């Protein structure tokens, strides 16, 4: 038996012994465990699984051991992942910092930065949020205005960030700030790490049209950030951010595994399409329903085909843009259809006489409007496909 095969056998056995049965089921709703100083467990199994993986140093299995990781080789890491998939093990913790920031820190961070930040992440003690978007920047990230002025060994940060997911629960933020107001756009931006408990940081959750959300606005009022929290060179934050965003797709993949369950359109619409005798009441809506479901099927097949191509190392083009565009627009189309099918039932809202299941569909409809905007709007994805895949010229 090769060394790797031995590792596989041991890993499989360890997982079978230590991963509780309830942690081998798909995540639904808000059953994710978010690591951090205020980590919360909804079940005892969640805690057990989290703590056992932490002890095993497998919250960060392939990081160096000196930074709190498990020190696995890339081959071992793939074995561990495949064994976890085989058993259906959940991620023991969700952590934006781990998936987005850590790869960048490992590449570009100083030894002190790695010590200071990677160890707590690997131990599930620190939760991170992202501070890129700003109230007046939108899709044009580089037009950000939050500024950081050098003052001795510190930066003094002033400004605001928006659309920060779970800004109200994070311990730290990685952020882009403007350090040279004279430079043009992408130049003059730096990448810094900000302790969310610093004086002058305030956080305000954003209420969406669909109701409460995980998004926040974060305000900085003369916040002191030590210079040692600068990652990469001064005014070179754009380079760091671009590297970080390359990890976004992989990270989003982990999130969607545990994303909010979407509605099955046929199950929801069926009672409305037929009358009490089973006769079709709404031929037009039935055709639309079939169209929506067929589109979803074609999308799933495309996901499968492009994954197979990626495995076969064939070129996959602007995969992420296509997937993002299609998935979010299909969600929008599906909920538009369900709203039509459900008629008055889809107009319910929290309050007297409300039907919870119907309100959930309505809320999901409203929330779907954010999908085609957040994380690069549909228009941005179309621009990218036109330019990068089709090679159409920049311009008008």
């Amino acid at each position, binding site marked *: 038996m090769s060394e790797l095969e031995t590792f596989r056998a041991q890993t499989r056995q360890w997982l079978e012994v230590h991963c509780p049965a309830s942690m081998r089921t798909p995540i639904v709703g808000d059953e994710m465990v978010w690591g951090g100083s205020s980590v919360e467990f909804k079940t005892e199994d969640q805690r057990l699984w989290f703590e056992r993986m932490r002890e095993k140093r497998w919250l960060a299995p392939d990081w160096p051991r000196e930074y709190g990781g498990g020190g696995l080789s890339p081959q071992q890491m793939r074995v561990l992942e495949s064994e976890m998939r085989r058993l259906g093990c959940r991620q023991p913790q969700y952590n934006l910092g781990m998936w987005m920031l850590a790869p960048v820190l490992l590449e570009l961070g100083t030894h002190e930065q790695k010590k200071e930040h990677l160890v707590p992440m690997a131990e599930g003690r620190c939760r991170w949020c992202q501070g890129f978007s700003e109230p007046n920047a939108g899709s044009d990230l580089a037009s950000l205005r939050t500024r950081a002025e050098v003052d001795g060994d510190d930066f003094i940060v002033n400004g605001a960030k*928006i659309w920060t997911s779970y800004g109200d629960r994070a311990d730290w933020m990685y952020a882009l700030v403007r350090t040279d107001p004279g430079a043009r756009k992408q130049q003059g931006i730096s990448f810094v790490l900000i302790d969310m408990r610093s004086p002058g940081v305030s956080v305000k959750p954003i209420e*969406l049209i669909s109701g409460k959300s995980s998004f926040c606005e974060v305000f900085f009022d003369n916040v002191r950030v030590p210079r040692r929290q600068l990652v990469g060179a001064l005014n070179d934050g754009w380079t760091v951010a671009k590297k970080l965003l390359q990890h976004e797709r992989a990270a989003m993949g982990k999130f969607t595994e545990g994303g909010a369950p979407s509605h099955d359109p046929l199950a929801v619409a069926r009672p409305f399409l037929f009358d009490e005798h089973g006769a079709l009441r709404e031929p037009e809506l039935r055709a639309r329903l079939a169209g929506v479901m067929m589109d979803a099927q074609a999308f799933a097949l495309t996901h499968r085909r492009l994954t197979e191509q990626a495995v076969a190392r064939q070129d996959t083009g602007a995969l992420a843009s296509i997937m993002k565009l299609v998935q979010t627009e299909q969600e929008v189309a599906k909920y538009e259809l369900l709203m039509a099918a459900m008629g008055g039932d889809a107009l319910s809202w929290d*309050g007297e006489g409300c039907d919870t299941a119907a309100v959930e569909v309505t809320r999901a409809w*409203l929330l779907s*409007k954010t999908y085609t905007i957040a994380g690069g*709007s549909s228009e941005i994805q*179309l621009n990218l496909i036109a330019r990068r895949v089709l090679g159409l010229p920049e311009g008008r």
Partner: protein
Amino acid sequence: MSLLLNEEQTMLREAAASFLAERSPVAAQRRLRDQGRAPHFDEALWREVAAMGWTAAALPEEAGGLGAGWKALGAVFEHSGRHLAALPLLSSVVLGASLLHEAGSAAQRAAWLPRLLDGSARLALALDEQPRHAPQAIACRAVRDAGAWVLDGDKRDVLDGIGADALIVVARLPGDEGLGFFIVPAGTPGLTVAPRARIDSRNCAQVRLRGVRLGEEARLSAHADVAQLLDAVLDRARACLAAESLGLARAAFEMTVEYLKQRVQFDVPIGSFQALQHRAARLYVGLELLESSVAAALEALDERPHGVAQAASLAKAKASELGELVLNEAVQMHGGIGVTDEFDLGLYLKRMRVLSQTLGDAAFHRDRWARLNGF
């Protein structure tokens, strides 16, 4: 015959525009929502509106109305839509008073019409029983029992039903007598009117009738073809809803065009991007077609009784379809700010969806229009 407003109608439109802009801006609707208290509209405002005669505008003079025409009232609805003004005008006047005027006895008319028009009393129509508008699918039954009528059934989505002085209930009569209308005063034993919270935060009720006993005087229109009368009255409401949708969609569209001009990204106004320009231009063209369709439905109510059903279905179908499209596009073009509760656009989006479903959406009216055209 004209699709344009005459001088009197234009004056009323301008009065409505300035009054509603000042007295019922969107902020007022937001306050009503946050308060969440019945009747979910401003009663003082409603009395003022009645005093200005808007309630009487479309009704004929023998009903105590001004006979200014449906085009005049449509203009009021258009501006209500523009400012999201919550008024029980559709429920109490377009549905309530006009049904009572068409189908009521002299006594019923005398008892109700003056109070409906001066705003001191309100009626609401309890019609739909299905999630999707289906005015033929009436299971609520009225049976005769010792000289009285007894009503049993459930009604849903009753607009402004909370606090209404009486409901007009549409019920199925015994045997093959068809449908009947009954005035059921609030508080009648066996009647339950429960609030139902909806995304537009307006007044809406679920109604239960359990052994509700009524005298013969509670029945409207023992003589007429009730289904036909119902259709005629619903078409008035559909035309007004289409006018309200037009105003609402135009307001959202104008906000969006303004935003496209103001909002700078990548160093230029986003309105200079051709893809957005073309989408905005298509919405503009759609709104022009909707405006014509709405004007034609109102004109038909005033002057072409035989064309009403088709014109109302055309206007309502276009209003539902285009209203949804305009609001969805408006949200998308606004980007992040468009999906925050703080920004008004979400209130427009939610109200538009209620308007779109009320008394039939685009699919319903395309189907009806096709049947009216013999296919």
